[in-house]
């Protein structure tokens, strides 16, 4: 296992595999950061139920754009240009969850509750990682992601508390997004994931991170009166 801590000035000396993996993971992270606003801004900025919610949609998008900027800067300094993700269509996003469009408020709420939470898990993988410029941008990004998750949770709860119709909408959205959230962690037993861990770029296996996520989310779903979807149904990666 690689346990050194790397600064930008050390990057040229690193093994080609390390360079490739770091560039790859930064590209995916940048794509996910900008992929969120591309899913919800078009419809939700106008369709959010209140003016305050509309402004919060805009603020959330601003924060994600800023996260993209910070990741793109770290990538850019090692010669990896991620700017192409700013203009690529949603259908070409690296992670399937970001392909498409959010059309309903319940989907937007549950997206924050469940998918931004996966985002937090992905970022937490880099805690104490071997590449220090990446580690340094994490605290502010994670703090803002926590705000998105809390907002999504509260809006999901509001829907549930609005009555049977709202609860059904929330359950349908959870059924849709939960399996996508689980797939976002990637294949169990992934060889690439092992190499990330070897080089100190990630902490957990895909399977472990997914299990930790399920252990966190399932009690929350039950607590707010929703059913936990079958975690094996409709999955792309097991």
């Amino acid at each position, binding site marked *: 296992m690689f346990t050194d801590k790397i600064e*930008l000035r050390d*990057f040229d000396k690193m093994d080609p595999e390390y360079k490739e993996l770091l560039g790859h993971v930064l590209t995916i992270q940048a794509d996910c950061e900008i992929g969120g606003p591309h899913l919800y801004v078009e419809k939700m*900025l106008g369709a959010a139920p209140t*003016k305050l919610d509309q402004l919060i949609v*805009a603020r959330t*998008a601003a924060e994600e754009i800023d996260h993209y900027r910070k990741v793109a800067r770290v990538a*850019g*300094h090692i010669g990896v240009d991620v700017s192409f993700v700013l203009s690529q269509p949603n259908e070409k996003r690296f992670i399937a969850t970001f392909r498409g469009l959010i059309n309903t408020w319940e989907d937007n709420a549950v997206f924050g509750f469940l998918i931004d939470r996966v985002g937090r898990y992905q970022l937490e993988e880099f805690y104490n990682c071997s590449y220090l410029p990446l580690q340094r941008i994490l605290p502010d990004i994670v703090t803002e992601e926590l705000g998105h998750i809390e907002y999504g949770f509260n809006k999901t709860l509001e829907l549930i508390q609005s009555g049977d119709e709202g609860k059904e909408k929330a359950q349908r959205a959870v059924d849709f997004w939960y399996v996508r959230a689980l797939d976002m962690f990637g294949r169990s037993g992934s060889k690439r994931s092992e190499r990330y861990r070897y080089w100190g770029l990630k902490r957990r296996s895909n399977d472990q991170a997914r299990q930790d996520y399920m252990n966190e989310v399932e009690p929350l779903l039950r607590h707010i009166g929703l059913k936990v979807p079958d975690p094996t149904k409709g999955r792309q990666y097991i």
Partner: protein
Amino acid sequence: MPQAVANLDQMDEHLEAVVRALYGAVKQGIPHVKEPQIVDKAIADCKEILDEIMAGKVDEWLN
């Protein structure tokens, strides 16, 4: 040191300005959510800025 990508600082500065403008518009609107003229203007400003970013015409941003 590795060679940084071209226009990195320019892109960073542009996006930082975009984010600042969005925060500014949101900050204008939030205390006035019950005053349609002010809040609608703030939301329209956010939409204009976000539409440009979502369009993703990166070359135009840097020229």
